C-alpha cells in the first residue's frame, strides 16, 4: 500500500488530507491520472510529486510502501 498526501488546495479538492491506495508498479504520471479520476480533481499535470520526501519525475515507478506527496506550485506573491 501507499500513502498519498495532499498539499494546499489539493486537500480541499480531494476532501481528504491523505489517502491510502496501492500504487505499486505505477508511474507518477499514471498515479496522477488515477487519483484525479477517482477523486474528481482537476488535472494534476503541473503538480509536483515527492516520493519519500524526494522530488520524483513523471516516469518514476512507485514501490510498495512509498509515501507520495502532491505539492501544487502556487503563483501568488
Amino acid at each position: 500500500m501507499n500513502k498519498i498526501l495532499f498539499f494546499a488546495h489539493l486537500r480541499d479538492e480531494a476532501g481528504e488530507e491523505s489517502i491510502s491506495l496501492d500504487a505499486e508498479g505505477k508511474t507518477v504520471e499514471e498515479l496522477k491520472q488515477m487519483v484525479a479520476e477517482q477523486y474528481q480533481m482537476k488535472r494534476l499535470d503541473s503538480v509536483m510529486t515527492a516520493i519519500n520526501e524526494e522530488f520524483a519525475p513523471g516516469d518514476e515507478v512507485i514501490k510498495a510502501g512509498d509515501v507520495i506527496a502532491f505539492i501544487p506550485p502556487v503563483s501568488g506573491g
Partner: protein
Amino acid sequence: MNDRYSRQTLFPPIGKPGQEKISSKHVVMIGAGALGSGNAEVLVRAGVGRLTIIDRDYVEGSNLQRQQLYTEEDVAEKLPKAAAAEKRLKAINSEVEIRGIIGDATPEVLAELAEGTDLIIDSTDNFETRMAINDIAQKYKIPWIYGACVASFGMSFTIIPGETPCLNCLLKTIPIQGLTCDTGGIIGPAVQMVIAHQTAEALKVLVEDWEAVRTSFVSFDLWRNQYSSMKMSRAKDPHCLSCGDHPEYPYLNADYRAKTTILCGRDTVQIRPPHQRGVNLQEMAGRIKALGYDVKGNPYLISAEMGPNRFVLFQDGRALIHGTKDTAQAKSLYNRLLG
C-alpha cells in the same frame, strides 16, 4: 550610524567581511506586492548596496492588509507601487541606492538589468514572469530565489545556475490556472513565512556562504500545520531547455509569452496566453463572484464588471479587458485572476 549593522555583524556567518560583501551587492526585486515589499524591506535594512525594484501596479486598498511598505496615503494618491516602495525604502535606509522601475518585467527589461546583478528575488504573482526570470538567470548565471504564497500556503526554492535544478526542470511548462491571492485569498503570516525563507537565502547568497544555501524545496501550510522539505538532488534534467546541456532559453522567446493587443477604438486590451489553458469557466465565475463582482456567463465565456473594467474570459484562456488601453494594467488584472 556606525553601529547600524552591529547586531548583524555579530552573527558569525556574516561578520564584518560578510557585511562588506552585502554592501557591495546589487539585488533585483521582481514585484513590489506582498513578497516584494517584505523582501525589499529586509534587504534594505540589512544594508544591501543597491536594490532595483520593478512593478507594474499601483497601490490599492486591498493591498494594505499585507503589503508592508504602503500606507493609506499611497492608496489615496494611487501611487505606483515601485514609486511608493522607492520612497519608503529610501526613508528606511538612505545608505542604499534604491531604484524603482514602474513597468512590466519583460525578458527585455530583465536582460538589461542582468549586467551587474548579483541576485534576483522573485516576488511576482505569475509563472510567465517566473519562467522568464528563470531563463535570464540561467543565461547570465545569476542566482535567484523563487517564492510564492496563496491562502495559508507558501513555498520557496533557491536556484543557483550550474548547481541546482531550475524552475523549468521542476515544472516543464507554465502551470495552468493556479490559485492566486485575488481568488484564493491570502493571510499575512503566509507572506511573512515566505519572506523569511527568501531573505535568509538571500543573505547566504550575498555573503557567498554557498554551503549554507538550502538545497531542498520548502513548502508549508500555516493553517493546516504542514511543513515539507523536498530533496531535489534528482530533479535536475540534463535535457532541460533552460539549464540543460543545450539550453535554448525558451521563455525569452516571444512565442512563449502571453500576447497582448490593444483593440483599436474599443478601449479594450486582448490577452492571449501562450498555450491554450482550458479554463474551467464555471469555477472561475464562482471565484470572481466570491470577490463580490457581478458575473454573467454562457458555455463559451464569462463576463464580469470589475470597477471601471469589464473582464471577459473565454474557455481557451483568452481574455478581453474593456475600459482600458493600458496593456500592463490589463495583464496585471489577468494574472491576478488566473495566475
